[in-house]
């Protein structure tokens, strides 16, 4: 079945997917519309699933194919649907006008993170397979950009999705470097769904009780002034 030529093509396809995956982290970082953020997240998860499929073929690993299916089910179907169902349209259609840090500065920071994370893992890549050399640095990078994205967001839904993007980064590296059992992946996928469900309910409660989903504006709990 597997020929060197086909393997070569697939390895290149995986590199291309890696580039697109990295790009998707940048897109999420600058997306202003909550809806747009959601679409960007679905695309990113799709890339993760595709990469798992390609690596599954290259490494002849049925477990990675299962991981791809779990990712498809949880992150491209269940999680977006959950968010759409739990949250009223006015939350989903919100626009974030002010980030904590403006977009050009954020882009510079993200490029800085990319370069640094690449040079940090390069010594680990000596002798590693081509797929590890793509997935490990890109995964670490998407994870760190995800943390940064979370930090500059003020709106509830993008914060939740930024966490799931961090998760995508970790698993993007994970599919290349571990042969973790499918049960663990299944548990982790299920976990993601529960996380989103819980946080979505919390977001709805916030909108109902506090009247805003601008979580960045919440700062009543602190030292200094009287409670």
């Amino acid at each position, binding site marked *: 079945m597997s020929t060197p030529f086909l393997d070569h093509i697939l390895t290149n396809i995986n590199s291309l997917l890696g580039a697109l995956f990295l790009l998707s982290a940048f897109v999420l970082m600058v997306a202003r519309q909550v809806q747009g953020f959601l679409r960007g997240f679905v695309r990113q998860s799709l890339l993760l699933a595709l990469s798992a499929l390609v690596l599954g073929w290259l490494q002849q690993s049925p477990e990675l194919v299962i991981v791809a299916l779990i990712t498809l089910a949880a992150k491209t179907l269940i999680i977006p649907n959950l968010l759409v169902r739990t949250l009223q349209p006015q939350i989903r259609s919100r626009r974030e006008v002010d980030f904590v840090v403006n977009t050009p500065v954020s882009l510079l920071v993200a490029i800085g993170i990319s370069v640094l994370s690449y040079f940090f893992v390069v010594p680990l890549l000596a002798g590693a397979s081509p797929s590890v050399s793509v997935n490990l640095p890109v995964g670490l990078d998407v994870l760190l950009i995800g943390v940064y994205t*979370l930090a500059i967001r003020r709106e*509830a839904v993008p*914060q939740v999705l930024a*966490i799931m993007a*961090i998760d995508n980064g970790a698993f993007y*590296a994970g599919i290349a470097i*571990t042969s973790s059992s499918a049960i663990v992946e299944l548990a982790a996928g299920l976990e993601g769904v529960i996380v989103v469900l819980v946080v979505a309910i919390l977001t709805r409660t916030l909108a109902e009780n506090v009247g805003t989903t601008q979580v960045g504006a919440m700062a009543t709990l602190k030292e200094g002034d009287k409670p």
Partner: protein
Amino acid sequence: MMVAAIPVIPLLAALAVLLFRHPTPARLITAAGGLATLLLSIDLAQQVTHRVDLVVLPGWVGVNGLSALILVLQGFVAMTATIYSWGYMKHQARAGEARERRYYLNLNLFLSSLFLVPIFLQPALTWVAVELTTVLSVFLVSFDSTPQALEAAWKYAIITIMGATVAVLGIFLLLWGLSLAHVAVQTWASLKATAPLMPPLLLKLAFVLILIGFGTKVGIVPMHTWLPDAHSQAPSSVCALLSGIEVSTILYVIMRLWPVFAWIPGSFAQHWALAFGLLSVGVAAFLMIQVHDFKRLFAFSTVEQMGIVLVALGLGPAGGYASLYQVLTHAVTKSLAFYSAGAVLLTTGTRDIASVKGLIRVSPVSAMSLLFSGLAIAGAPPFAIFLSELSIFRSTWQTGHILVLVLLLGFLTVAFLGVLLKVNRMVFGQSHHRPVSLPLTIRFALLVGWLPVLVFGVYLPRPMHHLLTLAALTLRR
């Protein structure tokens, strides 16, 4: 099989709570479940001290000295918290029967996830259990549904889940290290055995990701920002669980990997632990002087105490026993401090330190309990934490970390003064509160909570010493 029964008991209790409409059976079932888990975990710990390791399902479920210690502490705090909840939730003005049932459902589910963490033998599954503890406790933190409680729950969920997600890459890297060495079994034991074969850089990267990731949920400065909010806004019984044992349970995961990270050349992990530990103790000590909310005072004290444990870990093998001793005394003392704080909250109806005065005249029980648990948590003799901190000072001296010792003593003095000044102001003086009689279950929970704090302050019973020694051995590479 008993190991698996411990998390199953609260799960069954949660199901049973659903069956009844009235809250009384829910209170009874939950308290009985708490007692059952404590008895089972004590029995388990006894078996472990005889056999060292107890594997139920090879490669999946098992207990060693360290996890048995954590299970016993979880069982103890769960038992007192479930009894305390009885009187506390009943007297919470806004409770109502339906809400109270929902509280017990959430509490039992949270307890179940908490018991899952120490029994898994695979790091990946343990990570899943850690995530579960977060998502199942979010609604306990937001239980009061006030804007402040929701704010606290939001920060809690987002920041700690982010931390856990960062940690998962660290775990993947360790598993990669296993596969590089052609080891197929992905357990704590196989990691410990394979660690010397892994590239040091891989271990370093994994360590940083795991320390920052799980450290977020332990409340290590500078990732602690959510902790004082969540640990003060939740109902007091839940605060006792979160502050008393949940943070230590997450720290357990880092401790479980300690023998792996000890292989990083140049004592890399120890230096990081010392730096982050001292930073946490220092920052928390100075923040404790500034608080206006007495539950936040104890929450910051948790950040401080976790810092102390981390400093002890950073001392290397010499500090292993002392760090676990501190975990033990912190769990029993901090849960008691929150029970006392909850009793004061019930009596006065406010968390504001300046609004509470002359507590001793209106509720002598809660006043005395608050005063002495404040002294106990600050490390005064003759209470449990005094002895464990003394053993940490001794290890610091013996390993020659004089600067660490000086800084630690300085910060602890600041924290001591902070606690003492605040508590003193609340307990003495003229009172304007109406006298309130505390519910019987709360008095009972306080009584039971005081026992280990007083006993461990005088001496450490032999079986406990045995268990600590066994647990400390698992920290060595």
